[in-house]
C-alpha cells in the first residue's frame, strides 16, 4: 500500500513555538524527509488555529487531495477539535487529522533551540507515521437525559439548581446536612457590602425547597454512580431522620421538649447548643427536624420518648432505617464545597488550648445576631468584652507546613471581622497579615475604610500565641494573650498583649473529597480539589463528559465567584440538554470472534462491565455502549483478537517508530549492529 497523501502544518503560535523551534527548518525537513511517508505539502503559519490558518488546511485538502493532516502546534487538549473540524469542513474525515504538541512538549519546556527543533521534527514524524494508520471514524452519539443531579446544597449548587429548574428541567439536590444552605447560612455579614448573609440566602433556599422541578434529598448521600455519559444511574441513601416528613409540620415542639442538650459542633461551630432532635437553624430548608441516635436518651436507655409523646401529629418514628432511592440523570454537578482549616494543626497558635483563641467560623456565629451570643462579641466566658483583639491572617494558607495555596477569602473576611469588632466593641484591633489581597469589586475600598476605622495593620506572619509572660514589661498582663509577630515594615519583633485572637482559617477540600471524585470518575488534585477540564477555557467542566463542578469544590473562592460558577455550570448543562444528544470520541474496543480463542483472559478486566462471555460460542463479546475505550483488554488479549479504534496497536507502533526514526539512535549513534557478524 502506498503512503496516504499527507499535509504537515507547523504553527508558530505567535512566538510561543517559533522562539524555541526553527519552524521553517521543521517545515522543510518534513517535506524532504517524510516524502516516502506520504507528505506532499508542508507549511508553517503564525497561528494555525486562526480562521486563516484553518482555511490554509482546508484549501490544501481540496487542492492536493490530502488524505491525512498532521498539525504541529499546541496540546490536543487545546485545539484537537479545531483542526478536526477544519478537516471535515474540507470533506476529510476528522479522525484523519492529528494534532501533535510541539508547544507544551517542546518550545515551552526546553531551552536549546537546536535540540528543541530536532525533537519537534521527531514529534512531527511520529504524527505522520501514526496518522497513516488512522481510519475514518464517526463520533458516537448518546442521548442526554434531561434530569440533573446536583451534589451539595450550598450557594453554588442552589444557584445552578434554580437556573436549571426555572428552565423547566428536573433537578435532584443531594445534601448530606439536614438543611441546604451550606456554609453561607452560618455567616453573619458578607464582604464587602456587609449585607446579611441570611437575608440574601434564605429566599433562594425557600425557592429551591418549593420549586416543583427540584427534588431535595437532604440528610442524604450519593452511594453509587453507574451508567455512562448522557444517562447516569444514581443511587442515593436517605439517612433516617426518625421523623415522618410527610406528616411533620416543623412546629418545633419536639425540640422544645427534648431534654438533651448537645454542643452544636456543626452549624454553631461548637459555640452553642442544640437538642438531640433539632433543625440546624430557624430558616432551615426543609423544615423537618433530625434526631441523632447517638445523643438521644431513648436510643441509649430505651426510655424518654419525650418528642414522641408531645408531637401533635405523631410523626416521630424510632424504627426508621436507611432508605435508598434510585434515579437517572444526564448531567451531574459537583458543588460539594469546602471545610474550614482545622486551626488545631498549628499548635503554636494555641487553638483548643488557649480559650480565647477563636476561628473565623466561631467568630461568624458570635457576631451573628441569631447566634449563640446574640451577636455580642465576648470572650469564652460569654460575658467579658475584649479590650484588644488580634486577627491572624493565612492560618492554614500560604504555608509549606499546611497548604501552599492562598485561600482567597481570608483577607477580606479578616477586614470584615476587624470592622465588626470595632462596630460591636471599643476594642483595639491588630491585623497581622503577610500580604493584603483585595482583588474584586469594592474590596480595596473596604480595606481603606477599615484602615480609616483605626485598625492597626502589622505586616508579618504570627510566630506564636501564648499566655505566658516572658518580659518585665509584660507584667500586669496576666491572663491575657501575647501575640508574637515580626513587624516586617518596622523591622521589629513585637509581642502584643490582647484579650482575644481570631484565626482567619483557610479553605480546604472536604475530608472525603477524593472518594467523592473517584465515585464520579473525575480527577482531583492530591489535596482533593476537583480539576477543571481547562482551568481557563472550561472552568466548570471536569474531564468526565457530563460531570461538572462549581464553587469551592474546585478551589478557594468567594461567594460571588461560587455563584457565577453555579450559573455557568447551569448554562453549560442546559445547553447539553437543549442539544438532546452528545457526541463522544469513537474510541472503543471490539472483538474479532474468529480470532477469539475463548481463553477468558480479558473477562475480568473491565470496570464498566462491557465484557461478557458467550458460553455457547465460547467467545468474548464487548458491549460498545458500556465500553469507555481505555484499551486495557486490547493490551491484554494474547490472541490479538481485540482491537481498539482510535488508539490501535498499529497506530501506536507507527508513532513509536516515527518518534524514534529521527535522528535515529540516541546521540545519533548508529543503532545498526551486524547481527550476522560472526564472533
Amino acid at each position, binding site marked *: 500500500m502506498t503512503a496516504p497523501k499527507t499535509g504537515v502544518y507547523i504553527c508558530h503560535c505567535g512566538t510561543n513555538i517559533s522562539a524555541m523551534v526553527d519552524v521553517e527548518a521543521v517545515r522543510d525537513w518534513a517535506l524532504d524527509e517524510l516524502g516516502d511517508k506520504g507528505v506532499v505539502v508542508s507549511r508553517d503559519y503564525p497561528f494555525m488555529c486562526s480562521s486563516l490558518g484553518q482555511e490554509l488546511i482546508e484549501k490544501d485538502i481540496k487542492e492536493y487531495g490530502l488524505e491525512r493532516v498532521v498539525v504541529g502546534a499546541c496540546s490536543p487538549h487545546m485545539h484537537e477539535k479545531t483542526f478536526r473540524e477544519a478537516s471535515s469542513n474540507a470533506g476529510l474525515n476528522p479522525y484523519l487529522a492529528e494534532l501533535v504538541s510541539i508547544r507544551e512538549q517542546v518550545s515551552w519546556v*526546553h531551552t536549546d533551540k537546536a535540540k528543541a527543533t530536532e525533537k519537534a521534527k521527531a514529534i512531527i514524524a511520529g504524527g505522520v507515521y501514526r496518522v497513516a494508520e488512522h481510519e475514518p471514524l464517526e463520533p458516537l452519539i448518546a442521548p442526554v437525559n434531561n434530569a440533573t443531579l446536583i451534589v451539595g446544597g450550598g450557594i453554588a449548587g442552589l444557584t445552578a439548581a434554580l437556573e436549571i429548574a426555572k428552565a423547566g428541567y428536573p433537578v435532584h439536590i443531594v445534601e448530606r446536612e439536614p438543611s441546604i444552605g451550606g456554609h453561607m447560612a452560618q455567616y453573619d455579614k458578607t464582604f464587602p457590602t456587609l449585607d446579611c448573609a441570611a437575608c440574601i440566602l434564605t429566599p433562594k433556599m425557600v425557592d429551591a425547597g418549593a420549586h416543583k422541578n427540584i427534588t431535595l434529598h437532604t440528610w442524604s448521600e450519593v452511594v453509587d454512580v453507574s451508567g455512562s455519559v448522557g444517562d447516569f444511574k444514581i443511587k442515593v441513601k436517605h439517612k433516617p431522620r426518625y421523623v415522618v416528613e410527610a406528616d411533620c409540620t416543623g412546629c418545633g415542639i419536639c425540640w422544645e421538649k427534648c431534654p438533651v442538650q448537645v454542643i452544636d459542633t456543626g452549624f454553631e461551630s461548637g459555640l452553642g447548643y442544640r437538642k438531640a432532635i433539632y433543625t440546624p437553624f430557624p430558616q432551615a430548608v426543609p423544615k423537618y427536624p433530625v434526631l441523632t441516635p447517638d445523643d438521644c436518651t431513648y436510643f441509649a436507655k430505651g426510655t424518654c420518648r419525650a418528642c414522641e409523646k408531645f408531637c401533635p401529629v405523631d410523626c416521630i418514628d424510632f424504627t426508621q432505617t436507611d432508605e435508598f432511592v434510585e434515579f437517572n440523570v444526564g448531567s451531574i454537578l459537583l458543588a460539594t464545597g469546602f471545610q474550614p482549616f482545622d486551626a488545631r494543626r498549628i499548635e503554636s497558635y494555641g487553638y483548643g488550648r488557649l480559650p480565647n483563641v477563636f476561628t473565623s467560623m466561631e467568630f461568624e456565629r458570635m457576631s451573628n445576631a441569631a447566634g449563640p451570643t446574640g451577636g455580642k462579641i465576648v470572650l469564652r466566658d460569654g460575658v467579658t468584652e475584649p479590650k484588644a483583639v488580634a486577627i491572624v491572617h493565612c492560618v492554614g494558607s500560604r504555608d509549606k507546613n499546611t497548604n501552599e495555596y492562598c485561600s482567597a477569602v481570608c483577607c477580606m473576611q479578616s477586614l470584615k471581622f476587624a470592622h465588626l469588632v470595632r462596630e460591636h466593641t471599643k476594642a483595639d484591633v491588630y491585623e497581622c497579615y503577610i500580604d493584603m489581597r483585595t482583588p474584586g469589586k469594592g474590596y480595596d475600598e473596604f480595606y481603606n475604610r477599615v484602615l480609616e476605622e483605626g485598625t492597626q495593620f502589622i505586616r508579618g506572619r504570627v510566630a506564636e500565641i501564648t499566655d505566658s509572660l516572658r518580659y518585665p514589661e509584660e507584667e500586669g498582663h496576666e491572663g491575657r494573650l501575647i501575640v508574637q509577630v515580626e513587624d516586617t515594615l518596622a523591622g521589629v519583633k513585637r509581642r502584643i498583649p490582647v484579650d482575644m485572637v481570631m484565626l482567619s482559617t483557610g479553605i480546604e477540600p472536604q475530608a472525603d473529597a477524593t472518594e467523592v*471524585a473517584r465515585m464520579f470518575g473525575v480527577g*482531583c*488534585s492530591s489535596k482533593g480539589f476537583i480539576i477543571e477540564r481547562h482551568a481557563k477555557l472550561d472552568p466548570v467542566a471536569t474531564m468526565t463528559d457530563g460531570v461538572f463542578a462549581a464553587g469551592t469544590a474546585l478551589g478557594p473562592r468567594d461567594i460571588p465567584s461560587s455563584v457565577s460558577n453555579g450559573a455557568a455550570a447551569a448554562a453549560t448543562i442546559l445547553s447539553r440538554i437543549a442539544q438532546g444528544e452528545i457526541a463522544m470520541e469513537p474510541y472503543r474496543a471490539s472483538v474479532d470472534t474468529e480470532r477469539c480463542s475463548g481463553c477468558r483472559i480479558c473477562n475480568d478486566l473491565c470496570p*464498566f462491565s462491557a465484557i461478557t462471555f458467550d458460553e455457547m460460542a465460547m467467545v468474548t463479546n464487548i458491549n460498545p455502549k458500556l465500553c469507555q475505550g481505555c*484499551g486495557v483488554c486490547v493490551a491484554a488479549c494474547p490472541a490479538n483478537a481485540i482491537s481498539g479504534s482510535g488508539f490501535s496497536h498499529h497506530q501506536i507502533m507507527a508513532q*513509536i517508530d516515527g518518534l524514534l526514526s529521527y535522528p535515529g539512535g*540516541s546521540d545519533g549513534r548508529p543503532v545498526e549492529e551486524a547481527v550476522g557478524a560472526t564472533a
Partner: protein
Amino acid sequence: MTAPMTTPQTSAMAPAVTAQPFEPLILGFTCNWCSYRAADLAGTSRIKYPDNVRLIRLMCSGRMEPEFILEGFAKGADAVIMTGCWPEDCHYRIQSVKALRRFLFLRRMLSDLGIEPARLQRFYASAAEGKRFADEMTRIVAEVKALGPIPPEIRVTLAAEPAAPAPVAEPVEVEA
C-alpha cells in the same frame, strides 16, 4: 617539515570527536487524563526539563502493551517511561493498576534479558502535577545518562542487516 606536524594535529582532534556527552533517547507514555495533562501543565507553567524524552499519549496507562515498550527499545530508546493516573483517581477507576502489573512483569523480564531495571521507569502524575512531571523527567534523564547507552549485544534493531558471509571459494568442477 610538514610531515611531523600532521601527527599532533590529528591526534589533537581525536579527543574532541570522542568527547561528545551521551544524550539518551527516551520514550515516554502518558495517559490522556492525568499525566498527559501534567505534561501540558508543565508546558503552560514553562517549567523546564531535558529534551531527551519523546511522549506518546494513550487513553489509559492500562492500554500499554509490553510490545510498545519493546518496540521502543528495539528502535533505539535507551529508556522507556510509563506514566499515568494515581491509582486512586484513575479516570477508568482501576485500570492504572493493570499498568503496574505489566510494568513489574516486564521490568523483571527485561533485566533477565540484560536491560537494567532503571531503563524502564514509571511514575504517577495527576493533571495538577506539572511540576512533578518535569521533576521526574529531569531525574530519569539524569539516571539514564549515568547508565549510558544500551550495549549493542543486548539490543538488535530491526535495521540490523546480517553481514553477508564471505563466499567461500568454490572447488573448481572437473570431469569425473
